[in-house]
């Protein structure tokens, strides 16, 4: 086990190293000099432009040789310094991201986990209840096949615009300051509902279909047939099938959780929900390279950590892997 995790850790470290290097390259490969772009954007006032230029030349030391810039970048990174945003100058990128991440978590954690639980349960049921199968399967396929944008826009339009049941922008009402009160919590949930529901629906369809197909596959597997020939009750056979069908679902869950830090770009754009996805959009629109770089760094880290966690979970639940790694 230790050796297996050690190997994985090494692979992830290497991946992290290369991913960060590429992330570092992005602004440097962009046409033009990020500092010039920045300064020209900010050049409404001459004094600000001068301050900015010198600040950035210092902060990023773009006049230094590349190898030194690169080393300095790692140094800053390890100190948790991701630079300063252009879009919301002079706020540090790290602060912007840390402000956005709670919204991502608030939106995506419940959407991913609840849709995963519900999808697995319903999918497993659909595998043995005919009428449920006949309704869930087409519905699931429609839900997963619908381009997400559509679904989100339809929800926003029907329940938000036309019916006026839910607001369609922001995380809370304009004019309320975040504070701890029932009024604010209600407002927060009210704004949260549509983006959450749109994500839940799409993911639910995928989980349910995946689970249903996996269970049916497992129920047809040789070990199920053997148990059936030996008169094992359907309950036992289904229990085994469910457990085995869960393994790919666990991977799927962990992968989904890993991308949470990336926010749900489409959702957050449609519903103007202030998570990382929304930040990425703004960073692109405003040519905020450093913010973009910071967001990507977050995503890389999140995906890698999630993958590492999957590997650990898998090693714990699936003996095929556990024994594979001792070389039996």
């Amino acid at each position: 086990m230790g050796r297996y995790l050690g190997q994985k850790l090494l692979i992830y470290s290497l991946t992290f190293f290369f991913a960060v290097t590429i992330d570092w390259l992005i602004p440097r490969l962009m046409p033009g000099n990020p500092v010039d772009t920045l300064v020209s954007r900010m050049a409404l006032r001459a004094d600000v432009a001068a301050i900015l230029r010198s600040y950035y030349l210092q902060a990023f030391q773009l006049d230094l040789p590349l190898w030194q810039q690169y080393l300095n970048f790692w140094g800053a990174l390890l100190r948790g310094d991701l630079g300063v945003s252009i879009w919301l100058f002079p706020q540090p990128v790290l602060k912007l991201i840390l402000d956005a991440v709670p919204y991502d978590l608030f939106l995506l954690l419940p959407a991913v986990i609840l849709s995963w639980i519900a999808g697995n349960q319903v999918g497993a049921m659909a595998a043995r209840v005919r009428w449920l199968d006949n309704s869930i399967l087409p519905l699931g396929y429609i839900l997963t096949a619908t381009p997400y944008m559509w679904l989100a826009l339809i929800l926003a339009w029907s329940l938000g615009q036309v019916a006026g049941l839910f607001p369609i922008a922001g995380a809370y009402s304009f004019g309320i300051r975040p504070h701890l009160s029932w009024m604010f919590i209600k407002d927060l949930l009210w704004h949260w509902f549509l983006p959450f529901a749109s994500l839940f629906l799409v993911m639910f369809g995928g989980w349910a279909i995946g689970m249903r197909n996996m269970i049916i596959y497992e129920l047809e597997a040789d070990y199920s047939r053997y148990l059936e020939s030996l008169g094992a009750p359907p309950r036992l056979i289904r229990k085994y099938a469910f457990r085995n069908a869960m393994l790919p679902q666990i991977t799927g869950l962990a992968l989904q959780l890993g991308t949470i830090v990336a926010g749900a770009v489409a959702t957050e754009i449609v519903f103007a929900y202030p998570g990382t996805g929304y930040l990425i959009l703004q960073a692109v629109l405003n040519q905020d390279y450093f913010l973009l770089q910071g967001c990507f760094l977050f995503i890389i880290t999140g995906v890698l950590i999630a993958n590492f966690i999957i590997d650990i979970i898998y090693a714990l639940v699936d003996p095929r892997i556990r024994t594979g790694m001792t070389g039996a």
Partner: protein
Amino acid sequence: MGLRVENLRVYYRTLRGYVRALEGVTFSVADGEIMGLAGESGCGKTTLGHSLIYLKPPMNYIEGQVFLDGQEVPIWDMKRMNEFRFRRISVIPQYAMNALNPTRKIGQLIADLLAAHGVDFKEILPELKRRLDLVQLSHEVLNMYPIELSGGMRQRAVMVISTLLNPSLLIADEITSALDVSTQKAVCEMIVEFRNRGFVRSTIFITHDISILYQIADTIAVMYAGQMAEKAPTEAILRSPRHPYTRMLIASLPQVGVRYREERLRGIPGAPPRLLDPPPGCRFQGRCPVAFERCVETPPFVEVEPGHFVACWREI
């Protein structure tokens, strides 16, 4: 009292109609008898084996009766069959190497299975260990996952599991087909040993490889295209086969005891009839060198000598 199968008819329901995989099969297997069931691929051996324990769609029970130790076995009833499965009728499937749930330790799996039949794992554990010794598996396998065992070890584990409750009837389907010659021999010896020690009473040992049967079978039954062609003590099938198909089959073997390969059967001109719409009467007529008018009627399976049954109009 053993097993008695009478006029068993089992078809597969397909989109193109019924595949008549078993057509009026009649035979019996005595207590302590190991009956080899031979015949070309596709002649219905697996279907027959499954019918006796696990008759499930697309298999369709049409007619016929099965008696085990004098008691009728409701093979057409998936639910009621659970009383018979494992305790009284058991199977070592063709896919024995993959028959164990990959994510359950073998000991736990056995405990689950026993619990489902109301048997206490702890009580049976000493006997289980003795049997593991017998098939040369360490007791450690109970604590292992199937993946930790080689294919051969998994098969032996399945052999022990399937026979743990001392069934009256054991069906072993092509359990030697995927093995090399020396392992085949060991597996055959285990089957004989299981019988000798009384773990199982009657055994149906299915194989398309007749030469294997010389080593272990007391009797050999030969099937052709869903019908029983001949059944007799091994020696009789070997020395004096009576059915034209059996004769050609035996003649096509190079020598007694030498392993024959399936391709050799193609030495018999022609091909078996399609089981979707087989001709009426003896299904061998298309390839039979001695066929005559009468063969359009189905020949009965009659005892021409004590313990020697043949379905051929020429032999009656």
